[in-house]
């Protein structure tokens, strides 16, 4: 059990490409932490640097109070699950799970027993003599998990743990992983490009872009109050409405509509300022009758998302989206109004939240 701390971590590749730009991060002991971001943002590089597979150009990595920046991967007391699970094809499940113990020179009988123990815990008891090639995707993942559990390392690192599973299995595996981590209580950092996955599984997360951390926070914080327009646009299964507007005294003029200043930005705006108004489709209510302080326009598209509908309104030349509960969806072409929740609307100045 250990906390992971990164101070000023930088990684520059030969050729000058900066994959990590002076990152500071603190993952407390026992937390399930997500590194989220689009492809190329540096999240996997960061994970590999924590593991020791990449050497940091500058800065430090501290695991459980020990500075491991210069320590070889094998000596950091971390265990890693790779995206393709990396189960050795020529060894059976028992030998695969027991492999880390073999390196630690544990006696053969002891390590086989421990492997069996861990395997049983993850429901693999009947598969212990099979080869990885004979297992399903979900079973392979559990063997990979058993292998890291067998190490009893201080921290676990998962690289895209769910992306190799098919869609249905992925949702089950999400719940399974979160429950497992809670039971084990081991500090775990995982990498994902899927924001829904990060929101569902993580205790806290870091959203990354181009080698920088754009925001660190709990899923609720990141979802309800994205720190900048990048995070605002990246998080959320339905894209956040980000509309240009201008401050007019005590009100805002956005997409030709007059809106009140949200609570979070009260007193911090100056007249005539150009701002970006941000509000999630989920944080607006829909009305068919005109309402004060709302977006008014014509319904262009109605999309069925299952229990809710996504209504796209054409408002003053721009598109505004609002989520509407089942049963109250309007017809295309109708006049409609979207009222933003005062406590969830956000103002962005130069990309950052006010």
């Amino acid at each position, binding site marked *: 059990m250990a906390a992971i701390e990164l101070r000023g971590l930088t990684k*520059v*590749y030969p050729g*000058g*490409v*900066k*994959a990590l*730009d002076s990152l500071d991060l603190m993952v407390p002991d026992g937390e399930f932490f997500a590194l989220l971001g689009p*492809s*190329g*943002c*540096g999240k*996997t*590089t960061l994970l*590999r640097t924590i593991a020791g*597979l*990449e*050497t940091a150009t500058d800065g430090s990595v501290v695991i459980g109070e020990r500075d491991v920046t210069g320590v*070889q*991967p094998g000596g950091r007391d971390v265990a890693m699950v790779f995206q393709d699970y990396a189960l050795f094809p020529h060894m059976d499940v028992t030998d695969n799970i027991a492999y880390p113990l073999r390196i630690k020179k544990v006696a053969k009988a002891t390590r086989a027993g421990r492997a069996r123990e861990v395997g049983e815990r993850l429901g693999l008891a009947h598969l212990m003599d099979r080869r990885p090639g004979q297992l399903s995707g979900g079973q392979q993942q559990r063997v990979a998990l058993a292998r890291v559990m067998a190490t009893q390392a201080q921290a676990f690192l998962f690289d895209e743990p769910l992306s190799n599973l098919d869609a249905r299995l992925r949702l089950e595996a999400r719940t399974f992983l979160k429950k497992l981590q809670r039971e084990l209580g081991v500090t775990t950092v995982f990498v994902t490009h899927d924001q829904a996955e990060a929101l569902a599984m993580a205790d806290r997360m870091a959203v990354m872009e*181009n*080698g920088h951390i754009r925001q660190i926070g709990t899923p609720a914080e990141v979802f309800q109050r994205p720190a900048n327009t990048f995070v605002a646009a990246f998080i959320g299964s339905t894209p956040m409405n980000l509309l240009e507007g201008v401050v007019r005294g005590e009100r805002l003029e956005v997409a030709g509509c007059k809106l009140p200043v949200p609570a979070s930005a009260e007193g911090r705006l100056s007249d005539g300022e150009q701002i970006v108004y941000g509000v999630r489709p989920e944080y607006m209510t829909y009305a068919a009758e005109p309402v004060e302080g709302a977006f008014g326009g014509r319904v262009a598209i109605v999309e069925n998302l299952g229990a809710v509908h996504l209504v796209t309104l054409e408002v003053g030349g721009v598109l505004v989206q609002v989520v509407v509960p089942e049963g109250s969806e309007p017809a295309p072409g109708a006049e409609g109004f979207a009222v933003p929740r005062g406590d969830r609307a956000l103002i962005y100045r130069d990309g950052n939240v006010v």
Partner: protein
Amino acid sequence: MARATSLSEKARYSADAAGLGTPRAVAFVAPAMALIAVFLVFPALWVIYLGLTNYRLTGLAAAEPRFVGLDNFVKAVSDGGFWNSTWLTVQFVLGSAVIGQVVLGFTIAWLLRDRRGPLKRVVEGLVILAWILPGAVVSFLWIALLDRDSGSLNALLGIPGFAWLLDHPMLSIVVFNTWRGTAFSMMLYGAALGNVPPSHLESARLAGASGWQQLRDVVFPHIRGHILTNLLLISLWTFNDFTPFLLTAGGPDHRSEVLAVHVYNVALKGGELGFGAAVSTIILLINLVVAVFYLRLLRRRS
């Protein structure tokens, strides 16, 4: 200021997966490189030195070889035997590689292109058999085939007593080498033809093109690159081929003495190592030119 861009996966992460490190990597590479340096590179460099001496196998020059500068090279270039062998080698390469193997290999690949059954397997199997059987064995099989009195060829053609190897040695070795080496070209063109999109061929066929026109307008443009690299490679191999020695030993009377055999006869049978080394150097240089050309073509294509 450095910016982070999305590199391809291969370039992004450190490739040293096992943490081998440079010192160990050098230790891993060293034995192979040492062997190559000693037993391959060094002789290639040594031959240039040898060519500049008057080294002989026996006699005074064997004990005390003298540096003679470019004498051997001058002698080679003005030696009738050398030019005879060079001309014979040109015929050998042109006849059996450029014309023989390529045409035959392509023809077979083309004829069998759409088939998958036993006929294809039998034909390909026999052609490949000709290639993989050891050189000494196939050479003797052709000696038996071409035997003047009871060889199968004369029996089939009804002309007993016709001495192929004595009267037509070059023709014999050209046909022999074509027979022997066709498999490589056949496999290569087979693969190349398989890569021609069927839709192109079908469009041509629907437009009324005959088989020959399809070949000319659809197939050749697609495989042009392969033809050239194939030609270069098998020309290089044929140029260096020593197998004619097993069939005719360069005779009768130097009439089938390709350069490879010429070097052997002059240097190792005749004992003139310095002179033989000069000829070998010339062969090396020709190889170098062809190989560089070939690699450049390959690189441009990939």
